């Protein structure tokens, strides 16, 4: 695993932060005496402190407040919190109209987030190659070389954002989902305007799946072996075993496809998942209790969901799933991209189906909240909301006290579930790419590509001007800095003065 037997004797290579993942990250590679990579540590500044931040707040504020966890998937937090608060309040079922509106919002979120990740962050790597010049390997480079692909990516993302705006009520900090249901319908004009765009969006989603499939076919060895891991998978699925991203039961399978747990109630996640800590990171390491901390790590997200379900309940995506899995289970880390695009297609199909339902434009929006003395009011008001966010399973767990204030809170975000896998993928890539001498830009590129496959959301970062350079440090076993390289936010590449105090910085513009 990520922990070497004797870390004191290892040399360290640090990469800080990782570019083009959300927020700040830092990778430390511990080398053995033969300069082989023994250990990989991905340091992520996640939402440390957020749980404490919302303790003591009125429960009705929570679905809005938690959106500030993340600038990329606020809707997932909005809905997971809403579901958890519903349960804590004793609301078993929101009205059908409210559920459809929430589902529409959620699938809009899945679709826009997947589009952003693939077209903006990953397509440059895949279309130009991991070692292509950094000045080109970005969304502007794609827009120049493949203008149709870039345009489709922007418009897909925009469509998803419009779905969110119309269901949540605002472009950001939406307030659409409230305890007990929703506070708005779609107007017929809004519904019709979205619906007219569905055929075009579906075609672009299908084209995106085909694009990744063709890239895979062109370089099968790379796609099958890069950062490959054999792990268990976890996700929610529908009670019928079909793919279900909004609400369902927990299922986990081994790498070989054997069922570890199935049909598990999300309210009991504590009985199924344990979290352990490591001294070098604030991000926890969840594992399946039944397998223990060493063997119990698992992966979540698109690659898990596509394989964990028995079927995708939409025609085009299911055909793509069958083609994807035609030769058995898929463990290649880069296959996350193709699974992500299959999910984007599925999300778009679901959106199209939902938009055909007149319940979106009329019908009851909220369920009554059981008050004091009501037989439906739980004696202990605690609720767990689980949702499949774009990056994987998202868990919100709250307790509400007699004053209607949040008294307990536990959040497990998708990136946390994938923590162990990201460390292992980085180690796998670095073992192959590190030349035993220095941190090359090629090594850095490959580590970034491995991490990006998981689309981690390092959510607490601010994005003020001047932040987020990328730094690569080489530190020997004695803790002395041997080499340091920075890629700045403007793309320039700078080799910093090393431990040698007379070293001179050399700056190379892109």
């Amino acid at each position, binding site marked *: 695993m990520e922990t070497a037997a004797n870390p004191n004797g290892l040399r360290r290579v640090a990469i800080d932060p990782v*570019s*083009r*993942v*959300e*927020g700040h990250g830092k990778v430390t590679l511990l080398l053995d005496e033969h300069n082989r990579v023994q250990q990989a540590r991905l340091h992520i500044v996640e939402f440390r*402190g*957020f749980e404490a*931040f919302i303790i003591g707040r009125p429960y009705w504020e929570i679905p809005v*407040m938690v959106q*500030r966890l993340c*600038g*990329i998937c*606020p809707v997932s937090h909005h809905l997971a919190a809403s579901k958890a608060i519903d349960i804590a309040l004793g609301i078993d079922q929101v009205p059908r109209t409210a559920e459809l509106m929430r589902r529409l919002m959620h699938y809009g979120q899945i679709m826009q987030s997947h589009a*952003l*990740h693939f*077209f*903006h*962050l990953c397509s440059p790597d895949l279309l130009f190659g991991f070692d292509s010049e*950094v*000045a080109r*390997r*970005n*969304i*502007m480079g794609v*827009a*120049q070389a493949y*203008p149709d692909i*870039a*345009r489709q*990516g*922007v*418009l897909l*993302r*925009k469509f998803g954002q*419009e779905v969110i*705006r*119309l269901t949540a009520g605002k*472009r*950001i*900090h939406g307030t659409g989902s409230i305890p007990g249901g929703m506070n708005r319908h779609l107007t017929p*004009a*809004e519904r019709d*305007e*979205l619906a007219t765009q569905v055929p075009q969006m579906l075609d672009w989603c299908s084209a995106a799946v085909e694009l990744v499939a063709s890239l895979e076919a062109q370089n099968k060895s790379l796609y099958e072996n890069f950062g490959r891991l054999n792990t268990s998978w976890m996700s929610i699925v529908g009670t019928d075993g079909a793919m279900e991203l909004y609400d369902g039961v927990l299922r986990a399978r081994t790498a070989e496809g054997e069922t570890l747990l199935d049909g598990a109630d999300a309210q009991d996640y504590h009985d199924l998942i344990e979290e352990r800590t490591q001294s070098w990171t604030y991000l926890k390491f969840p594992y399946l209790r039944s397998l223990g901390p060493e063997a119990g790590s698992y992966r979540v997200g698109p690659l898990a969901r596509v394989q964990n379900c028995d079927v995708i309940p939409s025609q085009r995506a299911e055909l793509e799933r069958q083609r994807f899995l035609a030769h058995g289970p898929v463990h290649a880390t880069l296959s996350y991209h193709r699974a992500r695009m299959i999910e984007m297609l599925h999300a778009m199909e679901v959106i199209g189906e939902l938009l055909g339902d007149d319940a979106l434009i009329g019908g009851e929006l909220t369920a009554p909240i059981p008050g004091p003395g009501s037989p439906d009011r739980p004696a202990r008001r605690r609720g767990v909301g689980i949702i499949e966010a774009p990056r994987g399973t998202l868990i919100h767990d709250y307790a509400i006290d007699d004053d209607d204030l949040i008294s307990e809170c536990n959040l497990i975000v998708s990136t946390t579930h994938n923590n162990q896998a990201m460390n292992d993928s980085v180690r796998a890539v670095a073992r192959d790419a590190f030349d035993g001498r220095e941190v090359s830009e090629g090594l850095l590129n490959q580590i970034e590509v491995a991490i990006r496959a998981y689309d981690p959301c390092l959510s*607490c*970062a*601010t*994005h*003020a*001007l*001047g*932040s*987020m*350079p*990328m730094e690569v440090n080489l530190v020997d076993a004695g803790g002395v800095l041997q080499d340091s390289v920075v*890629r700045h*936010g*403007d*793309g320039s590449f700078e080799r910093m003065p090393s431990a040698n105090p007379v070293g001179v910085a050399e700056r190379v513009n*892109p």
Partner: protein
Amino acid sequence: MSSLAGGRPAPWLILAIGNPSRGDDALGPVFIERLQRALTDLAEAGNIEFLTDFQLQVEHALDLLGRRAVLFVDAALPGVVSEVAIEAVPADAGVTPTSHALRPGAVLNIAMRINGHAPPAWQLAIEGREFALGEGLSSQAELNLGRAILMAQRWLRDRGCTGVIRNA
């Protein structure tokens, strides 16, 4: 701007970035609130559109379509600017985004690729000091915010957008 809303977009766009829950990272959103209050007459006339978001994203390129001028507003880390600074932003051709978030020049670049045109744009950087979760604006950020409002007022006048500033 909404693609569903139809109609001609407001000629001036002010697009502010930041997370309201993270101390001085809220400078952008708070700037919008304060400026909107100060410019109510103009806002009602539909001459200026105000947008806020956590980060600049690719689809913001579509928000630039049909604008006469755009002002990006963001908090800056200490030392990146001294108090407040405004400068014209060119469309960057060779920049590298370092996260899901884009820089203004990159958004302009994408706008040129997607729309075939990008409006003239400026960036207003407001120096922040503290970016901790759950904190309000620092006292220095508050001072810088007031200067930024005045600077934006001048920027609007220089662009030919004249209106009543009630409480800047």
